[in-house]
């Protein structure tokens, strides 16, 4: 008989499995393929040039194929088909290509459907929508757009690894979701640290606002939390009141939030394009 949601003994079991996996460092930290880690490194580098990015992507055939597929997708609808990476960079812009490459690399390695495939696919869409919404919020508030994207994309990056710890016949998606909610912050932060990304990205995953009220870290945490709530709305998931309440922390007024909601279709299109 399939386990029921909230079966206390089962929940406790899973709970301790995941807890000890995190504490003992046994959580599967995906080794990013070379291309992905190089794209990540380039994303945080002052002198990322189109040339460098093209070189990195060219070395990974799967990544390149995905990128060209996205560049030629309905949303971006090029008049002339994009057949080369150089054209893609020229057409989409360096920053966009970098975002797509990053998303593609994560999809291939981190959000690879294994156990609980449907759920993992959902997490990937949520990560993308959160990343694109983080960008929208950053732009509206004149904050750094690239950092916001990265923080949004990686906030719950450990969700698939947590799912992988739980057997196929174990709790329902809902039960698993609860476990992911509980453990993803800590596990994602550790993963991000192991990839040596900027510490503020790990802090956002950990939901750690830092000691300085209104400082950059607190601001980015609140922005990504709001982005996640708006992403949930646009993906038709359950409402996230706590996330939406971050609008007030960010001093966004009702009409500012409505403006962001108005970008929902655009965000969704970007998600469909990259997912």
């Amino acid at each position, binding site marked *: 008989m399939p386990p029921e949601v909230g079966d206390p003994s089962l929940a406790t079991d899973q709970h301790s499995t995941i807890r000890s996996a995190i504490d003992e460092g046994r959580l599967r930290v995906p080794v990013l393929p070379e291309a992905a880690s190089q794209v990540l490194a380039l994303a945080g580098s002052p002198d990322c040039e189109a040339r460098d990015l093209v070189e990195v992507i060219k070395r990974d055939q799967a990544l390149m194929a995905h990128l060209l597929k996205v560049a030629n997708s309905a949303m971006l609808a090029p008049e002339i088909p994009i057949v080369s990476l150089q054209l893609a960079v020229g057409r989409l812009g360096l920053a966009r290509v970098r975002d797509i490459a990053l998303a593609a690399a994560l999809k291939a390695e981190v959000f690879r459907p294994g156990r609980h495939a449907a759920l993992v696919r959902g997490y990937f869409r949520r990560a993308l929508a959160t990343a694109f919404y983080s960008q929208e919020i950053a732009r509206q508030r004149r904050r750094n757009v*690239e950092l916001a994207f990265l923080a949004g994309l990686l906030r719950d990056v450990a969700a698939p690894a947590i799912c992988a710890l739980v057997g196929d016949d174990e709790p329902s998606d809902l039960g698993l979701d609860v476990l992911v909610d509980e453990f993803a912050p800590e596990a994602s932060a550790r993963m991000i640290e192991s990839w040596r990304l900027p510490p503020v990205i790990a802090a956002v995953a950990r939901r750690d606002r830092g000691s300085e009220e209104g400082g950059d870290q607190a601001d980015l945490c609140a922005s990504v939390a709001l982005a996640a709530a708006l992403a949930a709305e646009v993906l038709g998931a359950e409402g996230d009141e706590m996330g939406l309440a971050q609008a007030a922390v960010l001093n966004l007024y009702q009409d500012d939030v409505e403006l962001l909601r108005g970008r929902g279709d655009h965000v969704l299109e970007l998600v469909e394009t990259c997912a």
Partner: protein
Amino acid sequence: MTTVESHDVIVIGAGPAGQKAAIQAAKAGRSVALVEREARPGGACVLRGTIPSKTLHETASSLLRVARGETGLVRRGSGLGLPLSAMMARVDSVIDAHQRYMTDQVLRNGIELIHGRARFVAAHRVEVEAPAGGRRLVEAPVVVIATGSRPRDPDDVPVDHENIYDSDSILSLSWLPSSLTVLGGGVIASEYASIFAALGVEVIQIDRYPLPLGFMARPLVERFMAAFEEHGGRFVGPAEIAGVSFDGVAKVRTELRDGRVFETEKMLFALGRVANLDGLNVRAAGLEINARGLLDVDGNGQTLVPGVYAVGDVAGPPGLAASAMEQGRRAVRHALGLPESGLGELVPTGIYAIPEIAAVGLGSEAAAKAGREVVIGSAEFRELARAQICGNVGGLLRLVVDAADARILGVEIVGEGATEILHLGQAAVLGGWEVGMLVENVFNFPTMAEAYRVAALDVLARLPSPIGA
């Protein structure tokens, strides 16, 4: 039915103008509501303008000083490769300390600080919307509009805050770009252009006039230009922009009408600011927004509607925090029928470019235009021991002195520290000092203030006898 809260004075906006207005009213014993849409007071000045840009200015100046000290020469590129956040490490704590101090000052004076966005429903009645959505009504016989300004969002330049920035978003850059086009020749454009150039960024500043900062005396601007060029900056003007676009890859492309094209990694659009009047519903107060997008006011900041004042950036130039504060204070004194001292009329100008430029009182060019007979005395910084010690040798101080009675009418300075050094000159102008005062008194040695003595001696040598004898 919504209750209406009554006060003696409502001030909308807690930037420099609004704060000073509110404090002046509270000090006069009136009950004051200060409405601010941001979570804390400070305005553009603290959050997006003066303080962040001055923090970066300080870092750039320090790096330059170190570079000069090491080699005796200006070394370019001292900031390249460093994350911008590292160069502004102190900015959050400076803003925090400043805002704390201001909030304390407001609360200490018994002012009610209302967090929300104000909107007129009548001339003396304002609705305030909180970020979370609640609304309240406030009314008062005196309302001061001090809602400030923000960067203009142009139709023809695609400001995306990722490649093309405005002065609010420029400091969200992660890294110093290798090259930057700055559009504009005003204070903000020139400050950022010179700061980024000093940090080693290849800067091209483009404006429609032949020189930046056209309202400052020519010799000062020429010194500014010389330093800017020494740091690798390039000024292009007069120039008409034909188009700006991001090439989709990595370059912002600026085309001029004469066919020239410039490509840089990033762009700062710093051509003009607009008053924060949208959403304020000033029509309900019986006010019209003029053709320049501002509110018309008289010398006391009073609009055409009795009891309604507008001060600071929302009322137009000069767009400086110092004058905004003075306007706020003056408007409230007028509204409450308090006497005016007139002392605040002498507002100095300070431009925190590299090098700094500052002026107070009658300028040399204004004097010439007015046909006033003046004598101008100069001091080159390189003649001062202190300037030699600091490697601050490119500066210049000019005294503008009345030829008839030798009184100091104005001071103009360019060079590191100009905005501070100016204040002795301001006291001299205010006090109506004769230029001889600067020669007869003993100054500390070595100091930059010595420039005043040197310039005064120059004036004395030029003054017609017997004054100069």
